[in-house]
């Protein structure tokens, strides 16, 4: 699900950026740092829409770096249990298939695939109904329901540290949501077959 929320972050800026373009520098650095990151609490930061307020900078002893508290609005994407998503299949194997919805990886195990679909191995592994009318293979688009989510432990750490002022730049670990989904329900399954286009 997408949300438009206000987040806050302390930006450290090198003294060489001080000058007329200070604000632009802060904003561009913010975008570079934040967009595409993920936290367990808010999910993926898709895009920064506006900067609400840049607070007073604080010069850090010893380094000369200045820390600015920045409030910004952004669009975040967070998967929830029970949510219906549309995703692109990225890999098919006998255990099930993996799909991606933007930054989110989803695994659909074979027991959550309708019983009438069978795994066909080969050059292009796929799940096919007995009459061959529906086929799930790489690059198929499927609609699925999320039945479980997981965030990496490093993400939770980062999450905690984000709640209090943090004086170092964005965490170096790119965080990931991982979900498991099902297509064994009404109105779920393939919505667009790449071969028929």
């Amino acid at each position, binding site marked *: 699900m997408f949300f438009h929320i206000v987040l806050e972050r302390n930006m450290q800026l090198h003294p060489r950026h001080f000058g007329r373009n200070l604000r632009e520098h802060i904003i561009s650095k913010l975008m570079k740092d934040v967009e595409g990151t993920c936290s367990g609490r808010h999910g993926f930061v898709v895009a920064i829409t506006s900067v609400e307020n840049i607070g007073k900078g604080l010069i850090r002893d010893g380094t000369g770096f200045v820390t600015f508290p920045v409030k910004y609005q952004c669009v975040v994407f967070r998967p929830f249990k029970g949510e219906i998503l549309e995703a692109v299949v990225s890999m098919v194997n*006998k255990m099930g298939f993996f799909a991606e919805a933007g930054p989110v990886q989803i695994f659909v*195990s074979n027991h*959550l695939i309708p019983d009438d679909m069978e795994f066909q191995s080969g050059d292009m592994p796929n799940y096919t109904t007995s009459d061959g009318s529906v086929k799930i293979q790489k690059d198929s688009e499927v609609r699925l329901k999320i039945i479980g989510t997981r965030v990496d432990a490093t993400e939770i750490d980062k999450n905690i540290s984000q709640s209090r002022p943090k004086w170092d730049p964005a965490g170096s670990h790119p965080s990931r949501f991982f979900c498991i989904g*099902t297509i064994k329900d009404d109105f779920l399954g393939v919505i667009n077959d790449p071969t028929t286009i």
Partner: protein
Amino acid sequence: MSSIEPFNRLVKLVARAFYDDITTKGDNQPKSGRSDNRGIAVVVLDALTRRQWVREEDLAKDLKLHSKQLRRTLRFLEEEKLVARDHRKETAKGAKIYSAAVAATADGQPFAKEGEEKIKLHTHSYCSLDYAQIYDVVRYRIHRMRKKLKDELECKNTVQEYICPNCQRRYNALDALRLVSLEDDSFHCENCNGELVAESDKLAAQEGGDGDDNARRRRREKLKDLLQKLEVHLKPLMEQINRVKDLDVPEFGTLQAWEARASAAGRAANGDSSSNDPNKSSQGYGGTPMPFLGDTKVEVAFSGAEGKQVDVKSETDSTPQKVLPPWMIKQGMNLTKEQRGEVKQESKMDGSSATGGLSDDKKSTVEDDKTSLQDEYIRAYYAALLKKQQELDEAAKNQQESSNTPISDGLSGASSNRQVGMKSKREEVEGDDDVDWEEAPVAGTTSESFKVHDLNVEAEASAEDEDDIDWEEGFLELQSRVILGGGLLFAMGLTGCVLLLQTRHE
């Protein structure tokens, strides 16, 4: 106990449905034919349906079980939330109360415990069925069973689990990303790189189901069958639950409550008839130590209330001339409150007679909370206010009625005497109050009351300055007047309310 029957039936059904093959032995112990005690839970539960609270020793004796074995079973049943237990240290006397209670319930259990006496303190355990909880627990249990089967059947919302056949390490679908390997399309163990197999559901695990179609279908069949069987077998139980649904749940309460109630009932029965009962009841009374603690508390409260009522009566007796129908209710309120105030006052008077003065008041109030202190403060405030108003009233009355003058004189005398003789003054004050409450409504024409209000505002200001002093001197009389404060609210009207609120806020 007509409503208990369906519940007992429910318990029996539950016992046979769910606890039929429960052994209290650990699983690691080998089950020889002799130590096989399956079904013991059923026996115990059945026995409990015929009793209320029962001492575990007695139950063991009745069931011809070893008490250890019984205790183990009961502990299990307690964990299953079917049985409520209570443990307490008691002397033989305490045990006798229980026996008396048992005798009083007279539900067909012949307990002849009167003779047995032990002097030492022993920890006795008691148990009884907790019907309300049983009902809930059973419903929940059935719900869980159904849900699990249905989920398995529809493979809904279940996170697939994988297991490594080599090292028995388990994974679930959320780990899938880490488990995929590049060389082939199956999952591999992080530990030993063995190929993982899907743990098809827990119920049909033996098939080793690696998810091929045949196994899946078979599993479904099996599940469906299982679910159907469940429905059939639990049908009588479900029916009983539905029957019981709208009935009142029999409630024994805690052991203490039950004992108290049972022995009370027994005593009540004894009052009517029976020759040998009195000694039983007297025993019940004599051996009060533990179970009757709660009861005695209650009695204390009662006695307090009674005392108050008596006092009130005496008060009304002493002042029989006040029979003014329109103000009856007000007066009644007044009196009781007054009475309460007086009681407090007397307790404080005792203290003040020893040392006297403010310190005593404080000493007594220290025990109370700060809030009570604040209350006192407010009361004192009111007393001061009231005094002002009374004086005003008196003044007004003096103008109107010459007959009142002696009384008002008395009042002024009292107010001037304040610091000197507290007791005497208090009495006077009381007299004044009475008079005041007789007269005030009579004299209360609107114009006057307005005047009073205005002056009250002034009085407030002055009273705030004098608070401390008022607190000291007004303290004793104030109790008797607090009440007047209540009544005063009516008389004072809105300004009074505002005042009160202000003082509260402060």
